[in-house]
């Protein structure tokens, strides 16, 4: 059966391998350049003791390659659409299930081997792209500390593997349910995009209870490096919180914390436009503090693991549906 799967999909495999090779060459060349650029900049700023400002002065890489790397966010979706969607749907559509299912190989084995190789290929391909992107982004990560940003988080580490496996499973399952290739592909795009957005925007920040830090406006410490600030705001003298989500209207940015001017003590409100040197002592004197809730950078791999797990579990559920549909329904 493996031979059959290879014979059926080897052209897709060659195409994918060629695309990956081209991508690898681009990233290896530009990544090496960026790494050495970063190292030399680091060496020179260490001499002049001005490394704290390096993130603002150093720009790494070309915009075109950065865009290419950013676009790898669609790789799992493409795999789901072009590998997952047609995998069983096309066989139903062209009637070749009626050829395959009357050979001396059971449907169960037919499905297991096909799906197994598709998932393995998706994991390998998604993983390979992610390894390249993660390595390529190393200097940028060290410079900007923004690995929790969705634009970084979603294309680095192990989550792309989970996304790819899920997307392919989604394509296979919709294909098995609908038995039509094009609708299966379309639904795969829609459902995958929707789930990625929902999980990323609504669930991800809740994987672990966020830490809270309260600070005085006068002696505001720097934000924890690389942390993902989930929320922030102001604590009043009575302990009442004005988080960035509450209140409406325009927000002031005070030490990285958005604050609605309406929530400022009346005595200080007039000082808003006179600069922090006057505003902060005023607020401090009236018992106002700032706070942030955040996920520390040390949790990065835990978050990566949890998100990957969520998508792998969803993939498993879809594969169970696929197995039931393919094995129980008539050919």
């Amino acid at each position, binding site marked *: 059966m493996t031979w059959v799967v290879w*014979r059926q999909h080897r052209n897709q495999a060659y195409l994918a391998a060629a695309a990956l090779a081209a991508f690898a060459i681009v990233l290896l060349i530009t990544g090496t350049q960026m790494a050495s650029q970063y190292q030399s900049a680091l060496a020179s700023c260490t001499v002049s003791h001005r490394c704290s400002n390096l993130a603002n002065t150093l720009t790494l890489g070309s915009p075109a390659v950065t865009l290419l790397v950013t676009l790898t966010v669609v790789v799992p979706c493409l795999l789901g659409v072009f590998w997952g969607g047609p995998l069983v749907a096309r066989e139903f559509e062209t009637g070749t299930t009626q*050829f395959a299912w009357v050979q001396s190989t059971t449907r169960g084995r037919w499905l297991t081997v096909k799906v197994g190789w598709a998932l393995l290929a998706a994991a390998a391909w998604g993983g390979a792209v992610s390894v390249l992107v993660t390595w390529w982004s190393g200097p940028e990560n060290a410079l900007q500390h923004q690995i929790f940003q969705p634009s970084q988080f979603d294309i680095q580490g192990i989550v792309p593997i989970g996304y790819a496996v899920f997307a392919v499973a989604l394509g296979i399952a919709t294909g098995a349910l609908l038995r039509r290739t094009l609708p299966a592909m379309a639904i795969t795009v829609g459902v995958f995009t929707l789930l990625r957005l929902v999980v990323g925007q609504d669930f991800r920040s809740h994987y672990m209870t966020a830490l809270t830090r309260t600070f005085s406006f006068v002696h505001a410490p720097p934000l924890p490096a690389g942390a993902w600030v989930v929320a922030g705001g102001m604590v009043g003298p009575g302990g009442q919180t004005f988080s960035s989500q509450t209140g409406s209207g325009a927000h002031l940015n005070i030490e990285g914390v958005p604050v609605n001017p309406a929530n400022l003590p009346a005595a200080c409100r007039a000082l808003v436009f006179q600069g922090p040197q006057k505003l902060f002592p005023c607020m401090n004197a009236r018992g106002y503090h700032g706070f942030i809730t955040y996920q520390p950078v040390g949790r990065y791999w835990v978050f990566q693991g949890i998100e990957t797990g969520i998508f792998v579990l969803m993939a498993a559920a879809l594969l169970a549906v696929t197995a039931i549909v393919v094995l129980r329904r008539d*050919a």
Partner: protein
Amino acid sequence: MMASSDPAVIQTRGLSKHYRNVTALSDATVTVPEGRISALIGPNGAGKTTLLRLLAGLARPTGGEVAVLSSRPAQDPAFLADIGFLAQEIPLYRRFTAEDHIGIGAHLNPRWDAGSVRKRLESLGIPLDQKVGTLSGGQRAQLALALTLAKRPRLLLLDEPVAALDPLARRQFLAHLAEAVADGGLTVVLSSHLVADLERTCDHLILLAASRVQLCGDIDTLLAEHQILVGPVKDTTAIERDHTLVHAVRTARQATLMIRRNGPVIDPAFQAADVSLEELVLGYMGQQTTTPAHAHLSMIGEDQ
């Protein structure tokens, strides 16, 4: 009818298949002994495809029992190895060559006769290295048939196998099939809505109409059991009482009756004649036109 000295390769009892509100096959009881070439005949939508798919295990029955080669059609490699099934649509991978299909068969079947396919295609002048999608319909059908035979099945289920072939190819193919059966160990069921296609080759008949089995048995026996009576248009209740009336055509001057005999016909007013297979089939199909509701439902059913 069920009792037979030959071991039955196919034995169904009360087999039925419903799709939501549509009945594709109803209460089908069929026996096919080993070594026969059985003609599965019926009008379009009679349930021929459904019966073949149930026998091959591609569809599950909604009721009744089915035994094929002494076991229930199942997802079991040993069962599948014994069955050769060719769907009416001639499903092949259009972007693959004949040689690719031979390779697939070799990897999926325990006793695969790749040589027989190559030999057959070469004798028919069908290229092995050309994409199947570029072959003619007849060539594709020949390839699919050769691939189905290469499995060396014990039971061959062919759905309208000759529909895509020209008359000469039909004759050659059926002769080829008869040879394979003569070699022993093979039983064949092949469907068609045209009697003439199969008359020469088949020795067994399953007649389906309106989702029901009308006749099943040895063709010679069935022909001997039936008779056509031509006589005056008079009261035929005596004949209908003693025999089973299959079909009657009454004009102003004469009545033509097809009966299934229970003993000899001794009414001197009627002239008795033997029936041909075609007359037999048409007689039973004609009977069904009196229940158009059923026929309509079953026509929808076959598309499922």
